[in-house]
């Protein structure tokens, strides 16, 4: 029995979500192969080869994989699938795109976004925006699984000796869709999904210009910036900062929410944070029910004061 873990990377390094995925793969208990797919990703494959617990790295390097489009990704994974009992990937916008294709092409179900491994067949996953946790048994011979990274440890040891890296020559022929352009948010701040501190703003921040107050505190703390959907919808910040049921799932050491009411869809994305701070001028805001430290006050006074005193 072997598990295939599909790596998340940015073409130069593995993401911490891949390490979390590896922890989940180890809990499943099989031998583990890691698949690195992309264009010019040899160095990423090399990095994966030194991770503890990895028996082999497969590297598929071709132009067609450059943008990880779902159709060629699906074809590639299906091509490799016969050798594996488990095919797993950290949940992200790529795996959410291609993994269900893999499942359908293999005629098996997919278990999305697991937060615990109970055995090689049995997993826990959040449903109803995390308001309930389901225990499910996957019945198919091949198990296709995505992993909620924030629920698994990212501390993976390095081996002194690297495992073998095998080149995969299969080149998917799917030409069903094509990449046209990317509009990637440039940021020098830590990545939201893996940051250990996050400062988030909601509708209460009022405007895109006012978000500078949130950013100033984030920079003081070396934190990532997050947002509620209301703040994104109002155009204060870009969509990739959205935390929640349908945005990013985060679990930093410190999550600070300014002007966020605490709707269940927002809580779904951040309530596993170690320490939660809420600043809201409404003392009855639901966010206070999950906050370790609540401060009833005006964010326009609190944010600058905090930034200057730290």
């Amino acid at each position, binding site marked *: 029995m072997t598990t295939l873990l599909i790596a998340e990377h940015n073409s130069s390094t593995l993401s911490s979500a891949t390490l979390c995925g590896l922890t989940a793969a180890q809990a499943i208990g099989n031998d583990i192969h890691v698949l690195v797919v992309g264009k010019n990703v040899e160095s990423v494959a090399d990095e994966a080869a030194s991770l503890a617990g990895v028996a082999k790295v497969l590297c598929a390097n071709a132009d067609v994989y450059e943008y990880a489009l779902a159709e060629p990704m699906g074809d590639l994974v299906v091509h490799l699938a016969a050798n594996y009992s488990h095919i797993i990937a950290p949940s992200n916008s790529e795996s959410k795109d291609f993994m*269900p*294709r893999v499942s359908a092409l293999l005629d098996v179900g997919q278990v999305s976004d697991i937060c615990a491994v109970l055995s090689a067949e049995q997993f826990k996953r959040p449903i109803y925006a995390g308001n309930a*946790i389901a225990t499910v048994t996957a019945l198919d011979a091949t198990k296709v699984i995505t992993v909620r990274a924030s629920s698994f440890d990212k501390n993976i040891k390095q081996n002194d000796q690297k495992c073998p890296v095998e080149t995969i020559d299969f080149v998917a022929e799917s030409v069903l869709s094509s990449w046209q352009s990317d*509009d990637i948010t440039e940021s020098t701040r830590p990545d939201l999904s893996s940051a250990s501190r996050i400062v988030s703003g909601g509708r209460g921040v009022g405007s895109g210009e006012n978000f500078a107050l949130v950013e100033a505190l984030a920079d003081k703390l070396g934190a990532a910036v997050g947002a509620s959907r209301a703040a994104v919808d109002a155009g204060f910040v870009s969509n990739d900062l959205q935390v929640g049921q349908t945005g990013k799932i985060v679990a930093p050491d410190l999550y600070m929410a300014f002007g966020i009411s605490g709707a*269940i869809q927002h809580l779904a994305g951040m309530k596993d944070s170690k320490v939660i*701070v809420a600043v809201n001028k409404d003392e009855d805001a639901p966010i206070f029910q999950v906050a370790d430290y609540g401060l009833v006050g005006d964010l326009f006074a609190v944010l600058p004061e*905090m930034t200057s005193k730290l």
Partner: protein
Amino acid sequence: MKILVGVKRVIDYNVKVRVKADQSNVDLTNVKMAMNPFCEIAVEEAVRLKEAGVASEVIVMSVGTTQSQEQLRNALALGADRAIWVEAESDIEPLNVAKAFAAVVEKEQPGLVILGKQSIDSDNNQMGQMLAALIKCPQGTFASRLVIDGDKALVTREIDGGLRTVVLTLPAIVTTDLRLNEPRYAKLPDIMKAKRKPLDTLSLADLGVTPKAHYRLDKVEAPSTRSAGIKVASVDELISKLKDEAKVI
């Protein structure tokens, strides 16, 4: 061009769910149900394409219990032309739903299928991608912008680092993200008119689909809850708590 839209009946997004005492599932008795918010966005997008003259007919389809006809009637009131209800258990798995949709796509030959990116009950995020694989179609998931240009669809997708635009050759599958549009409300006269619009009933067997169990639900638990902490009185107190007590800064 015909557009096929998926509609799912789910718990209303404002309702806080409770787990049944025997932990067999969540308790949906007497709970307010509604159209999945992402499906509302899918219906809206299809109706706008019809209003713009891009689409000739909007067909809505739901695979679910008798009550899912309510959500189909709702979609008809919002401007869809006709509805297909495929009778099934409420917890039918995504791959089985995708197979039912694939059979209808085969019959109706729509130029575009629009589905919500996820349903807010099971949070699976699978059906559209599965359907695309089954009918060997390109997919544009998590769309925040859709432009139809001849036989192509330009889809701007919400990805982890920002936005990506892909070009799909029609027929294609698009799944909706929240920012694609702002759904309208149904007006009373339209709700009345919707009662007379055609609604066909099919069984999975009619579509040649034998539902298969790919997983078993063993248990549903309430998540571990956080208890509210303390309220601090000032920024100074907050900073000292974070430094000395929580040790996070």
